[in-house]
């Protein structure tokens, strides 16, 4: 198992945001986590990547405990994160955004005396092609559309070349066409990386969930199964009210 999580708990001001008994992920697995708002999905990813400190529990990544390590240590060990709200560097060009993300030595002196190599340029270019960013390479990232920012952030994560990618709502704010393209891309990436995706859009989940889907509700793991199992589970349907419920039924 690449990732093993046991008895992970965190609460904010007395409210249990997450109380996860167990979660594990195989190498090169693409896992989708769904759940209603406030289920603790993003909190879970926040804890894995070091943004939020857990109250108790353990997380083993590649056999090593990563709980309580700094963001940088966790990133160095091979975990990349895409946030729900696209977080890119608006004051830098798309190219520079990608350059900073690319896997290389990242201490002060390496940055001061950094010289680009053809191999690196190729790598940045090929990722940019994959995410349709070649036309906007020298535009400021702050001037991109929402969808392009989402792709740019995915590109940033891809260039980091992490073992495990944590992708938070990649399809939010995208058109149907863009969503489908994002899905295809994630499927392709899952051949070489382990990925955890959080998503609300059920059509998108159906497209990418070839393996297991985990359902979180109020911080707890409700169930885990294939997309078909999850879709037809009465408890899952009960948990989803309103719009998302309607979405489930139409499928």
């Amino acid at each position, binding site marked *: 198992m690449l990732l093993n999580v046991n008895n992970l708990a965190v609460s904010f001001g007395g409210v249990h945001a997450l109380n996860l008994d167990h979660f594990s992920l195989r190498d090169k697995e693409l896992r989708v986590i769904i759940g209603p708002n406030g289920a603790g999905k993003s909190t879970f990813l926040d804890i894995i990547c070091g943004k939020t400190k857990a109250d108790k529990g353990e997380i083993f990544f590649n056999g090593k405990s990563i709980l309580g390590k700094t963001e940088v240590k966790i*990133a160095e060990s091979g975990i990349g994160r895409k946030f729900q709200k696209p977080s890119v560097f608006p004051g*830098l060009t798309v190219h520079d955004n990608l350059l900073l993300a690319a896997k290389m030595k990242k201490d002060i002196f390496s*940055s001061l005396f950094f010289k680009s190599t053809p191999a690196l340029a190729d790598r940045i270019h090929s990722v940019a092609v994959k995410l349709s960013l070649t036309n906007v390479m*020298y535009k400021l990232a702050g001037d991109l559309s929402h969808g392009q920012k989402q792709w740019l952030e995915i590109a*940033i994560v891809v260039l980091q070349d992490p073992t495990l990618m944590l992708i938070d709502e990649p399809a939010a704010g995208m058109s149907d066409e863009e969503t489908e393209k994002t899905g295809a891309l994630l499927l392709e990436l899952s051949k070489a990386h382990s990925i955890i995706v959080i998503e609300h859009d059920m059509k998108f989940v159906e497209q990418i969930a070839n393996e297991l889907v985990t359902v979180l509700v109020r911080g707890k793991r409700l169930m885990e199964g294939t997309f078909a199992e999850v879709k037809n589970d009465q408890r899952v349907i009960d948990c989803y009210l309103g719009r998302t419920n309607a979405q489930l039924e139409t499928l």
Partner: protein
Amino acid sequence: MKTKNNPLYYILFIAIFAILLPAGYLSGLLSVNTISVWGRYFCFAIAALGIDLIWGYTGILSMCQAFFFCLGSYGIAMHLLLKKTVAAGAVLPDFMAWNKIDTLPLFWQPFHSFGWSLALCLLIPALFAFVIGFVLFRSRIKGVYMAIITQALTLAMWLIFLRNETNLGGTNGLTDFNTLLGYSLSSSSVKLALYMISFAVLCAAYFFCYRITNSKFGKVLQAIRDSESRISYAAYKVVDYKLAVFVVAALLAAVGGMLYLPQTGIITPGRMDVKASVEMVMWVALGGRGNLKGAVLGALLVNFLYSICTSLFPDSWLFILGFLFVITVLYFDKGFMGLLESIKQRFSPTRFKTPQTTH
């Protein structure tokens, strides 16, 4: 689409300050005081470059640059004063004798030597910056809290320097020097030489900052300004970068201070009071944040304006500065340099519209 390397600015700058001004003096059109005044402005511009690095590029509002500037000045002042004291056959500078001190304080001793003075003028600010930065950045203090803490620190240092017990001349500061390395500070040729040295150091500092900001290091700084969390999830140690740029900024301020002292002939704690430290930040804000040319231009222009205004309407300088600041914040947030760029853009529309009209 940036007009990064427009040589016009550099040519104008060098033509005015390396040729026109010295030529004006040599031909008798300008007094040596004018030369000296501009030499001092160059020192401020050097410090402003540091402020631009730390604030404009990295987004950390440091209000203690004036303190680092003074550390540089005080170091050189101590050396000059000791030289004068020794030359006069005394053991203690006059002000110490008046304060009834009988032996030279230990921390004054190394300033007998010029080499040690130079080294300490750089080492002490760097060390201060390192310690302050280490504590603040590690505890993840940022934004307005950073500004408040550094301002409070400068205030505390100002109070310490004001006291006679600190043995740095108290309110009166250190003054009344006569020679630097054997050259008389009152001679016009030394003043011109100091002007040229300041100019050269400013150019070198500019080039140095230019290299930094255009390297990948500079991009990381901008990335820290834009999104600190994103850059740390990309495995950059933000604290290291902040610390490095904070120390560099402190060094630039100190170098400015060191060159400033022999040209003014006096340093008092007034150079680092609250007003002075806010003013330093304003140079960069008015000139154009995140733009090295803007920092230099801002420092020169604001100080030039200051000298005009204080002679024309002596009491209203702070009102004028405040008014300029409000205007800048409201209407041209990229400062004077941003204004210049946008004017240029308006007058050469073809160059900027081509990329949009292609589709």
